[in-house]
Structures are given as C-alpha cells and as structure tokens.
C-alpha cells in the first residue's frame, strides 16, 4: 500500500508504469469524497497534485496548453485563456474552495464531467503519454476512459476564444449536477458549439449549429440545431435546452443573455 506524490511528470509516468492499477488523483476533490464514502478503496494512490511541472499554462499561437494539474481557479484567472471570457463560466463550477483544488483535467475523469462541454466547445483535446512510448497521444476530451493502463493525462490543448458563452441548467447554481448545458465559442478556426445532458451524454459537438452561431440573426436556427443534438425527451426539456442555446447565442453576439 503506497501513497505516491511524484514531483515531475516524468517520475509520475514511471510510477504509473510500475503501478498501473493505482488510483490516480489530481486535486482530489472528486476522488476523496468517493474514498470517504467507501466507494473506492485503492491499494495505491498516485497523487499528481504535487507535480512541479504540471501546472503551467502555455500560450502558443491562438491555442493554449494546460498542464495536467492546472486548478480550475487558476484557469479562471489565467489571461492566456481569456480571463474575462472564461472567468464567469468557471465561477459557476463547484465552490470557491473546491475550485482552488480541483483540476480541469481531473474533471474529465469524473462522471459526469461538468467541464467536458466547455472544453469540447473550445476544440479541446486531452494529451496523454506513457513511460513506454515516445511522443504523446491526443484524445477527445470526452474520451478520458480510453487511456491505456500505463498512460496518464499530461495536458489539455484548447483554442483561445474571441467570444465564449456557457449556460447551464441545474437544480441550484453551485455544487449540483448539471442537467443540461450549452457552450458556444468563436474560435480562430470558426465557431463551435457543444451540448451536454439528455441523449448528448457527457458532451457532443453541434456541427449543425455552427452556421447559425456565426449569424447574428440565427438564434432560432442555433437553438433548433442544439436541441436536435441533445434530443431532450420531453417538451419541457426541449424548451429548456432551446432557452439555454438562445441565451448562449445572445451572449456571443450582444455580450449579455437577458431576454
């Protein structure tokens, strides 16, 4: 039984190769409650929270690469991500104290992964590596379960948006599961949108909504395409997702979401 807290990504990969069944932990804010409840009883824990080289936020061109243990609060404060664009969104994630510890990458390994819809709209990918292979592998942010036993997530790659909007439906504002959410972004490579909830599962992109997102008068078309992607099962749910989409469209084009 061991609690390993490596200081570098290289040593973390070596530890992963040695203990492929160890429970991997980033900030611990999701894993620890599961251990408290007895749902997880690992023999070994590989804690990435102490990685000295794992919390960097590096801008390159019109994209940004985040280390595997960039905290949610740090991402919200980072100018490289567009602090004003993402700050409001990340304020709605968990509580202030939890945001200081939770990692963006770690959230993608949770079910549900609340941030997957955001990162999908930002054309995000999960970067993985292992001690046994050269180079890195990239996965969609919704495919965290596809890591190989000897791999670790070593980063996130995102586009930096010129404009961004996120609207979420939950029973309360914080510390409650997301029922449905829509994210939309104007990226250097073009608009992107994603939706979560109902049949969309964790998050799916909405390519059919893209032309409407670029059009300032396209709110209704955008909402219809997002609803089609999520396929909500009831009229109430369809109206809810459509409202979220319209609010996103309005935020993108007018900077506000008031009706």
């Amino acid at each position: 039984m061991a609690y390993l807290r490596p200081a570098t990504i290289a040593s973390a990969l070596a530890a992963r190769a040695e203990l492929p069944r160890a429970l991997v932990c980033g900030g611990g804010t999701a894993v620890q409650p599961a251990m408290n409840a007895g749902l997880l009883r690992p023999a070994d824990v590989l804690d990435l929270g102490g990685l000295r080289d794992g919390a960097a936020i590096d801008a390159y061109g019109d994209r940004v690469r985040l280390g595997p243990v960039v905290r949610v609060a740090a991402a919200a404060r980072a100018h490289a991500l567009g602090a004003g664009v993402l700050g409001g969104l990340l304020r709605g994630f968990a509580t202030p104290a939890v945001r200081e510890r939770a990692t963006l990458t770690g959230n993608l390994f949770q079910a549900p992964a609340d941030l997957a819809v955001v990162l999908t709209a930002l054309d995000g990918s999960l970067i993985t590596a292992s001690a046994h292979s050269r180079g890195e592998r990239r996965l969609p942010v919704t495919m965290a379960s596809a890591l190989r036993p000897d791999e670790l997530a070593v980063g996130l790659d995102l586009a930096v948006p010129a404009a961004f909007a996120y609207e979420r439906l939950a029973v309360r504002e914080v510390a409650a599961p997301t029922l449905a959410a829509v994210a939309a972004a104007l990226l250097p490579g073009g608009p992107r949108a994603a939706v979560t909830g109902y049949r969309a599962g964790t998050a799916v992109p909405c390519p059919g909504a893209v032309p409407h997102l670029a059009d300032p008068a396209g709110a209704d078309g955008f909402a219809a395409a997002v609803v089609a992607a999520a396929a909500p099962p009831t009229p109430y749910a369809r109206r809810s997702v459509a409202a979220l989409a319209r609010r996103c469209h309005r935020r993108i084009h007018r900077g506000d979401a008031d009706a």
Partner: protein
Amino acid sequence: MPDDLVEVRGTLDGEPYHAEVPVWASLLDALEAAGRPLPAGCRGGQCGSCTVSLDGVPAPACVVPAGAAAGAVVETARRAALPVLVEEMAAAGATQCGYCSPGLVVALSHLLRTSPAPDAPAVREALTGHLCRCTGYEAIVTATLAAAARLTSEISSI
C-alpha cells in the same frame, strides 16, 4: 507502522503533528487521528464545516487526501481567524449553533486578508460552499462587512 497505513506529518496551528492513516484517508481523518478533530459534515466538500487554511488557501479538509497534505502548513480557525472578524460575528449574532463557524471564519478571514474591502456580493461568493442552517447568512454578511470597514479604517489611520 503497519503496512496498510501511511504516515502524514505537517504543521497544525504552528505545531508539528503526526498521524498514521489508511491510504484513502482525508486530511480531516488525519487531523482526527492526530487528536485535533474538526467539525465534520458532508465529507464531500459541499458544507464547508471542516474548512482549514492549507498553505494559506482555504480548503475543505474532507476533500484533501491526507497524503497530499504531508508537509503542508494547516491552520484551523484557532490560528487563521482574524480577531476583528470574530468580534464582529459575536456582536452581530452571526453564530448560533456554531457548527459551521470555524470553517466560515477561515474562509472569510482569507477573504479579508486578500481583499480588504469586499462588497456584499464578494462576501456571499466567499460563503458559497458553507452551509449554515441557523442564521440565514445575513448576520454573517453584516459582520464581515463591519470587519472589513474596521480593517480599512485601521489601515487608513496608519
């Protein structure tokens, strides 16, 4: 030490502490094992009652793996509390049953240290994740703003 335990050492309220806990234990468990139990509530990071200052940043001890806190400086309300905030909370009746108060005091003291003149929305934002079933929060907000006003007054009079 048994093989199924991990050793955690750190600093608690200025004194060294030591605990031997299972690999899945939280900092909350480690402090309890060290003889310094905190108010425990949800054990899921949502109620805030076990909030401590961990290397200067508030954190619910229940969501911090014990091993992650090895070597860290942990402060409870005993050491992290701003006296002026405690005085104003007492004056405003901002604590009733008192179960949530230690965690609240840690979070709000951090707010006042990092943002000396917060407005009411900033105080309410800092209270997010702290459940108080007695006060309705208004007295807590009032006390924090009063403490901020006193701190600002003291700074400007220097």
